[in-house]
Each structure stands twice: as structure tokens, then as C-alpha cells.
């Protein structure tokens, strides 16, 4: 693999990010043999899976559980890691989840990561008593100027706080017709505005693009073309399934052929991409089994290597 670094990593954070290759999420119940340099180049960790909440009255602190952290470190061995959080709720006007960032401070101090990412959306609202209320599911961030301003400011602060690239993931959404400002346009315009203003990068989830294309009759190539491709540092591929007439981003299956095609299409257009991750949910990963997962990783690596050799 050519030894090149991404300009984006340098510009955004002062650190040099070298392309890592193909990664696998850390899933404690998968065989440790999968986390092997012969199959993967790096591991993507969702730190909340290694955590518990300690409550002090109404406030909860998210704490790393030492045993779980130790098991993850043993499994990952010398493989580099990146972080993919799920609890930040960066788009909530009510406020992002500060407890998540406190936990990430502790994580970084004991186990440094190459970059970290979160989802562009919100999952908490203001309750009637002013307290934060969980929605129970992430919702898409409306494509408005106010949303762009809030997320840009928070992303810039997060970028400074950790000194490594911070990536936002484009969402799969099922809601249609949310209010939008003409200057922002849609979810793609919102991602463009935020990355330009904050200096953060994008995690381009191609299965989410595929879901939106199928569910909302959008041209996926046009959607990808509209993304801030020079700011894409990581790509996700995943599988889904039909549920109640929607193609759901369920992470329950192999990657559809069309999504592999989108990866082949996208890699040459993302000059700063540093990794591709095959995502699964834990219960489905166990059901799919190690052989299927290894098969998907091999496909991703073949595409990645072809791209690197160009």
C-alpha cells in the first residue's frame, strides 16, 4: 500500500493521518481471530459499548468499564483504532451530550485513536421541565441555517478538544418533508456547510446513501457527487433489509452489490479517504458468522487495494 498521508488530516488537526485500509467494528462477542492484520487494518470502536452510566441524581456520567476496555485492548492487539460514537447527539438544540465527551477524554488518555466520528442528527429534546429527554431513536437534522451554525460551532470545538480529525456521518432517514432553508437545501447541503465552516471531515456512509436513494427515489450517484468529497476521510458500507416497505439501515446483512458498486465509484473521488469499515449490529454479526464477515472484509480489501494501486 503506498505510504501517503491525507492532506485533510494535516489541515484539520495538525496531525498527519495515514490511510489505514479496511476496518471492522469492535464487537465483543465476535471471535477475536477476526481482529487479525491478515483480515483488517484497523478497528472501529463504539466506546459506549464499553461503558456504563453512573447516576448522581438526574445527571449521569458515562464511565468506561475497566474489564470491557481491557478485553477490547486484548482483542485489538496492535491494530490502530478509530472511534465511532452514538451518544453525542451533536444536533440537539437542547445541548449535546457533555457526558459523552467527558468519557471520550478518558478514553483518549488511555487509548489514543486516529480519528473519531459521530452521526449528524439529534436524539434528545427539551422536556417540559427543561430537562433533557431521549427521543429513543436518532432523528435527521433539518437542513436549516440554524442547524448548520449550531453543529458547525460544536464540531469546531470538538476538533480543537481532541486534536485529531472529527468526522460527521450522513444519516439514513425515513422522514420526508422536514423544513429546510433554501441556502442549505437538503441533508447534503447541510453536510457541505458544516464541513466547510467547522473544518471537520465526513464519514460517508454509502449504505445510508443507498437507503435514501431507494426510499426517496434519489439518484445515489448524484447524492454522492453533491457531498464534500474532498473532506471524506472514512467510508461505511453495510447491509440492510426491507421492513414495512422501506429499505432499512438495519446492519443485518451482507453488503448489497449496488453498495459495493458505489464504493468502487466513490473511492477515486475521495482523495483524503483513509479507511473503509464494514458495519454490523452485534446480534446480526453473530448470526452472520465469522466466515461471512471475513468474506465481506476480503471484498472491501480487494476494492480498497485496487483503488490504492491507481
Amino acid at each position, binding site marked *: 500500500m503506498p505510504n501517503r498521508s491525507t492532506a485533510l488530516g494535516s489541515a484539520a488537526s495538525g496531525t498527519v493521518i495515514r490511510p489505514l485500509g479496511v476496518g471492522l467494528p469492535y464487537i465483543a462477542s465476535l471471535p477475536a481471530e477476526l481482529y487479525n492484520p491478515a483480515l483488517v487494518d484497523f478497528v472501529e470502536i463504539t466506546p459506549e459499548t464499553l461503558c456504563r*452510566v453512573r447516576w448522581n441524581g438526574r445527571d449521569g456520567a458515562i464511565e468506561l468499564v475497566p474489564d470491557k476496555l481491557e478485553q477490547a485492548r486484548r482483542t485489538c492487539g496492535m491494530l490502530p483504532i478509530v472511534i465511532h460514537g452514538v451518544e453525542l447527539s451533536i444536533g440537539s*438544540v437542547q445541548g449535546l451530550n457533555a457526558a459523552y465527551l467527558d468519557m471520550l477524554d478518558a478514553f483518549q488518555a488511555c487509548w489514543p485513536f486516529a480519528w473519531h466520528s459521530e452521526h449528524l442528527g439529534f436524539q434528545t429534546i427539551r422536556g417540559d421541565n427543561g430537562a433533557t*429527554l*431521549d*427521543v*429513543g431513536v436518532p432523528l435527521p437534522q433539518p437542513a436549516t441555517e440554524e442547524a448548520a451554525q449550531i453543529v458547525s460551532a460544536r464540531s469546531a470545538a470538538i476538533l480543537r478538544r481532541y486534536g485529531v480529525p472529527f468526522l460527521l456521518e450522513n444519516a439514513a432517514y425515513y422522514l420526508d418533508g*422536514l423544513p429546510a432553508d433554501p441556502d442549505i437545501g437538503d441533508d447534503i447541503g447541510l453536510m457541505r456547510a458544516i464541513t466547510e465552516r467547522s473544518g471537520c471531515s465526513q464519514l460517508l456512509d454509502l449504505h445510508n446513501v443507498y437507503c435514501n436513494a431507494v*426510499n426517496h427515489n434519489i439518484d445515489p450517484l448524484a447524492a454522492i457527487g453533491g457531498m464534500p468529497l474532498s473532506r471524506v476521510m472514512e467510508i461505511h458500507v453495510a447491509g440492510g433489509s426491507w421492513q414495512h416497505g*422501506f429499505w432499512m439501515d438495519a446492519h443485518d446483512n451482507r453488503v448489497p452489490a449496488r453498495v459495493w458498486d458505489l464504493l468502487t465509484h466513490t473511492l477515486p473521488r475521495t482523495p483524503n479517504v483513509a479507511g473503509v469499515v464494514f458495519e454490523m449490529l452485534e446480534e446480526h454479526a453473530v448470526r452472520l458468522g465469522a466466515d461471512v464477515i471475513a468474506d465481506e472484509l476480503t471484498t472491501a480489501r480487494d476494492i480498497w487495494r485496487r483503488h490504492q494501486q491507481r
Partner: protein
Amino acid sequence: MALLDLQTALGRLVRVPAGEDPFRGLHLTAGERASLVAVVDSAGFAFTVDVQRSWCAGRAANAARLTLSMLSADERQRLLADWVNAGGGTPSFFAAEADAFLDFIARRLPDPSHALTLCRVEQATLRAREGTLRFAVPDPSRLDAPACILRAGRYAALVRFHAQPQLLLAALEGQPLPPVSRETTPVLFGPGLTGLSRLASGDEVALWERLAAPGALSVLSREGHRREAIESLVAAGIVEASG
């Protein structure tokens, strides 16, 4: 439309679509309300609610796996649906809500029943595990303080099994369910116990029941509660001493 109003309205609508007025307290024009109503009428909104319901039910089910496994599929679905429809199951870290969910289930189970016993076991285990984060074995000399007051531990519980506990646990593994006996086997739960639980002796049950209200150690001693039993329960976090 202000983002705060938009997110609040959407979040309320997804959490409890049939609940209170989702637009209460928000600064929305008639046009903005109409646009949100149009969103709610869409198939995508219905699907988003389905996904939210499924995630919330899954979180709640994980908190009461043993109890729910004792119920019929219909009863299980009904309890989960009632909880989620009331706005439950939303926190990703469900531990905060698990205790309340187990209480919610307990109020709807026959007493006595094995399902209720398991519900109390799951609740007691949850509390004792939470207690391990804060519990440290206290200095025994605390019991020598003249004004020492004893109270039931905050992270402790006594659960009465209406069958031999091992038979009930075997039933969870597929063995036949033992009959619900009128005689009970008491089991103590506390953060300082190895494995968080053990069988309770008669002395310990008497002390636990006496501590339904806090009592002075001197009074408890006069009533005949033995110092050894008290020390053992204090060391396990089942009884707390202060003063």
C-alpha cells in the same frame, strides 16, 4: 421555524404520537403546524415511529429478560407496548429506567407467582450491582458508636422464593416449573455479597424485617438481634450503620 421548536415537536411526536398536544408551549405559526402535521401523516413518519418502538421495547426487554421469559408472548408484548406507549425505553443506557420498568411489571403480576419472584430478583440484582460502584466495607467500629442507628441498605433487598431457588432457576433452562408454594425461601441481595446474593438465615430475615424502619443498635440488641448477624449484614451492605 426555530430549531428548538422543530426538534421538540418532532421528538414529542415520535415518542408518544397519541399523547398530549405535541405543540404545547411552542412558538409555531399555523403554516408551521400544518407542515409538521403533513410530516406526521407520511409513511416515513409511521416507519420512524415503528423503529423507535422496536428499539425502546428491545432496551426494556433486556432489563427484564428473566421475568419476561416466564410470560406468554401476548402478555410480554402487552407489557412492553404499555411501557413504550407511556414514553418508556428511550434512554440508550437503560439502567436508569430499568428499576422503574421492573416496578411497572411487578405491579401487573399475580402475587404470589414465580414471575413476580424473578422480577424482584432482577430488580434486586440491578440495585446491588449499582451499589458495587459505591459500596466499601465499613469499619466495624462504627457499630460501637453510642448513638449507632441501623437501617436497611440502599442497594439491598430480600426476595422470597415460592419454591427452591435452584428449581426455579432450572425452570428457566427448560426444566418443569415447580408449583408455587406457600412456604418461602428468603434470599438476600447486597453489594458486598459474592455473586450479590445468598440464602438468608432466620435471624437475618427477622433483622431485615425489623429494619423496615431505622432503629438504634442499642434497642435492636435489647430486642434480641445478635451482634454477629448485624456485623455480617453491615459488612455485606445489606444493613447500613450511621451515627
